[in-house]
């Protein structure tokens, strides 16, 4: 470009042109819309914070519930516990100071009651039943479940099976053996018909 052209466009003229080009005003609705947008943002921000709080609280409740449920369910129940859940019976000669404290409810016990005075047997309790009876176990000591001779017999049986001295196929089917007795058919009582007595002679 030549110098004469550059001189022709004065700073003043240029500024005037630029100011005229930039002197555009927003529409009259612009400011109200802008205020509405800010108000909307304000409400939205409040809602977001509130919802996060609620979500956090709900999540906490769910976590605690889940934790409690898992703790309750994952408590290991050994096979022995399914057989015997009774606390150890106190020794006759035990010091009196120990009698004040209750025995632990789910203390692991041996299968066999070593006490000679184990008089009787009891059927093995199932797991849920054992859980249900836990508070009761604290309250009242349970009895020994299997007698000594029966336990010895069972041990012999298991060792014989383990040594393959007994063929398990020859054993009676447990399912059949433990099958509940067939229900007794209803007793049908025939209707009793009473025939009128014939008049006897002489009456």
């Amino acid at each position: 470009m030549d110098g004469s052209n550059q001189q022709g466009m004065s700073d003043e003229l240029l500024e005037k042109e630029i100011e005229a080009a930039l002197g555009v005003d927003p529409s009259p609705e612009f400011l109200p819309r802008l205020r509405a947008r800010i108000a909307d943002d304000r409400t939205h921000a409040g809602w977001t914070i509130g919802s996060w709080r609620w979500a956090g609280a709900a999540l906490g409740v769910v976590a605690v519930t889940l934790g409690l449920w898992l703790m309750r369910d994952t408590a290991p129940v050994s096979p022995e516990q399914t057989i015997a859940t009774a606390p150890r019976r106190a020794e006759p000669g035990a010091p009196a100071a120990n009698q004040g404290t209750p025995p632990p409810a789910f203390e692991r016990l041996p299968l066999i009651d070593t006490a000679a005075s184990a008089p009787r047997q009891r059927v093995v309790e199932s797991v849920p039943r054992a859980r249900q009876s836990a508070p009761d176990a604290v309250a009242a000591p349970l009895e020994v479940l299997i007698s000594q001779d029966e336990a010895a017999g069972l041990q012999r049986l298991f060792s014989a099976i383990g040594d393959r001295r007994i063929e398990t196929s020859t054993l009676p089917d447990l399912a059949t053996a433990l099958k509940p007795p067939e229900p007794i058919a209803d007793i049908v009582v025939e209707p009793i018909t009473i025939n009128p007595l014939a008049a006897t002679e002489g009456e």
Partner: protein
Amino acid sequence: MHEHAERLTGSLVTADLELEREFEARLADSSRLAFRVAFSVLRQREDAEDIAQEAFAKAYRSFRQLRDRTRFRAWLVRMTWRMALDRQRSNRRRSTHIVAAGIQARLGRYEEATADVVVARERAEHLWNAIEALPEKLRLVVVLAGIEGHDMHEVSALLEVPEGTVKSRLFLARKQLKERLSWMAATSRE
């Protein structure tokens, strides 16, 4: 203890209200500036209003964190400028350059298209093209100096650069614009 909590809550509410009031004052003071900055890039009223709104919404969200509130205008200008440039790029990706017929519709479709108006629009279009062709730093200085009669000091405050830098940038920008728009001086003399 309860009274202390109430006092604390009360002071927080008061602080929030003060903040709201302050932002409202800034909004009333700077909304046109934001619009014009956006318009200088986009040259379309609707788009410029959109960008100005977005910039203000963004500013509102971060207003509490802005330590030096006196720098609000500078902050807003830079943010609006950046956002407008982004929008311009995305607009360009979406459509090809808008032709003169389209520009006429954008600049003022309600006015009568007399010969003078057409000439004025054509001049404005050339001016805009010349401004757009400037390097970004020079372009922003020219735009800010042309808005609301800002002087060197105000432009340097808005851009947070020394006045000397603004002066030299403005000089360079005007020189380049004059070169590109020399024919306009000839037509205006006629």
